[in-house]
């Protein structure tokens, strides 16, 4: 399937934000935006759903804490019970610090690796830099054709109102933006 795409380049985050909001209000499909830094409010302007990575973190953290609590219990009172200063073998308060550290460790690593997974970030990946200045000082908005009403000239005029410095039409082949 081939799709038409419209790439609009901006030089200020305010322009990108305003254009994104306007384009979305017109009912056009926003494929993605490319920015040199996290533009606050862009996720809302693009209508992105809240990330579910928080759940990954929560589940990993809980797994870390419960797993470590079980392990501490098992080593200290099942596998080889040793009397330490007359404390009970299964002394829960003294198990808390290490269980907490395990929760933080697993929660942190779990969410970072989940981020790498869902965003397909891995060492050796060829970066697909849509414009050379995208990691420096330019912002690109990518609009996709969804129906016959995709009138390039009209949209281009709209984008010029928001100080788009350049617009370019592309044919999207295999879901890649050039």
């Amino acid at each position: 399937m081939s799709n038409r795409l419209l790439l609009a380049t901006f030089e200020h985050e305010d322009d990108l934000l305003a254009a994104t909001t306007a384009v979305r209000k017109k009912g056009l499909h926003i494929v993605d935006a490319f920015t040199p830094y996290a533009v606050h409010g862009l996720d809302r302007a693009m209508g992105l759903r809240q990330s579910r990575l928080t759940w990954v973190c929560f589940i990993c953290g809980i797994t870390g804490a419960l797993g470590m609590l079980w392990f501490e219990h098992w080593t200290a009172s099942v596998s080889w019970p040793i009397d330490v200063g007359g404390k009970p073998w299964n002394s829960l308060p003294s198990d808390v610090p290490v269980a907490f550290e395990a929760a933080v460790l697993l929660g942190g690593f779990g969410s970072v690796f989940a981020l790498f997974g869902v965003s397909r970030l891995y060492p050796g990946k060829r970066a697909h830099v849509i414009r050379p200045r995208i990691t420096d000082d330019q912002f690109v908005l990518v609009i996709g054709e969804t129906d016959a009403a995709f009138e390039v000239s009209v949209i281009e005029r709209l984008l010029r109102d928001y100080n788009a410095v350049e617009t370019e039409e592309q044919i999207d082949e295999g879901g890649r933006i050039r």
Partner: protein
Amino acid sequence: MSEQTSPLRPPLVTGDKTLGDVTRDITAPMAGKPTGLWWAAFAISSTALLIGVAAVWYQIATGIGTWGLNRTVGWGFDITNFVFWVGIGHAGTLISAVLFLFRQKWRTAVNRSAEAMTLFAVMCAGLFPLIHMGRPWLCYWMMPYPNTRGSLWVNFKSPLLWDVFAISTYLLISAVFWYVGLIPDLATIRDRSEPGWKRRISAILSLGWDGSARTWHRYETVYLLLAGLATPLVFSVHTIVSMDFATAVIPGWHTTIFPPYFVAGAIFSGLAMVLTLMLIARKVMHLEDYVTPKHIERMSQLMLSMGCIVGLAYGTEFFMAAYSGNPYEQFVFKNRAFGPLSWAYWTMVSCNVLIPQLLWFKKVRTTLPLVFVIAILVNVGMWFERFVIIVTSLHRDFLPSSWAHYIPTSIEIATLIGSFGLFFTCFLLFCRVAPAIAIAEVKGAAHLPRRGGATAVSEEQAA
């Protein structure tokens, strides 16, 4: 779109910069050849590191008998240095995580180097317990792994083992936090460098980052999660370090005030180290427009507040000793202030409590050389704090017949010098190979004005 920072606030980045200028200014120190000043600093710190390597080599080969410890004073320089370096690390996490949660945008100018500082300080800290083991090649015995001795497991009821987990988790999470923050900046370096090894390495490490808003959206979520995890982590680490002492029944150690007292002290000493490093780095690397006097002033205010908490803790300790009615406790504190090591105690009080009071004055906070001197003195004072807590509580214990004195040997002093060498060598290398300021974060927080007279179109106009 509305301004995200009030125009009434002083700008985070001065000098009328564009986004492109920010990239150029921050990556500039990495591009050219190192300056003479950098080489001089590197020569000094790597010499100190070599001294440390020689000293550590000797004491491991010979044994811990090369230290000045005796049967009464069983912990001295080594544990002092350990607690000192762990503490230094804490300000990095405070700036990168706690201030992030409190939405303090000025943190963007210093968080990258503060996080690097954390990483190197925790590395230095980790060395000391390793050396203290006497047989560091068996350090893996601290990890609970199935073994042929039973399996004999580690003692999860011991604060010393909690420390193993706390410090290693702290090191790993700090490293991940730092690396995740670096990814977008590494992509910036990748796209700006000529084909060659620098580009290839930054391409591998930036993981194919393309600046997609969808990735940024997830990235921000993970960054917030890491900040949320690192905040309780940083408090737990020094709490657990303090429990190494507080769970022992030694007068002077056995108090419930230790966890908050240690955490405040850690952040205090760490802020002093951040100030020391940043005041030098901004000059040497020409980053005066990014680390402005305003940033220095805010860090000074934080340092002052932490110093006051530490001062309150010193007072509380004395009050509790008097109020407890325990003669051993009372003796330890009298001995601390007026005994043979009283010079260390009063150095600590003057450097940590009295001198930082000067920071109440705006004139002092904005006179950068003065802030630098105060920061150095706080570093000295905080090292002495740990020395005072450890050595004065031990050297005159319950039985006067076992009282002893502690004098560090040259080997112990050389190890301390070596740890400073390791820290500064790592920091100097970091300044050369990675952007010392988080480029993407500064750009996001500064909300730089537009150039070229183009005006924003409001939504209503366009509609």
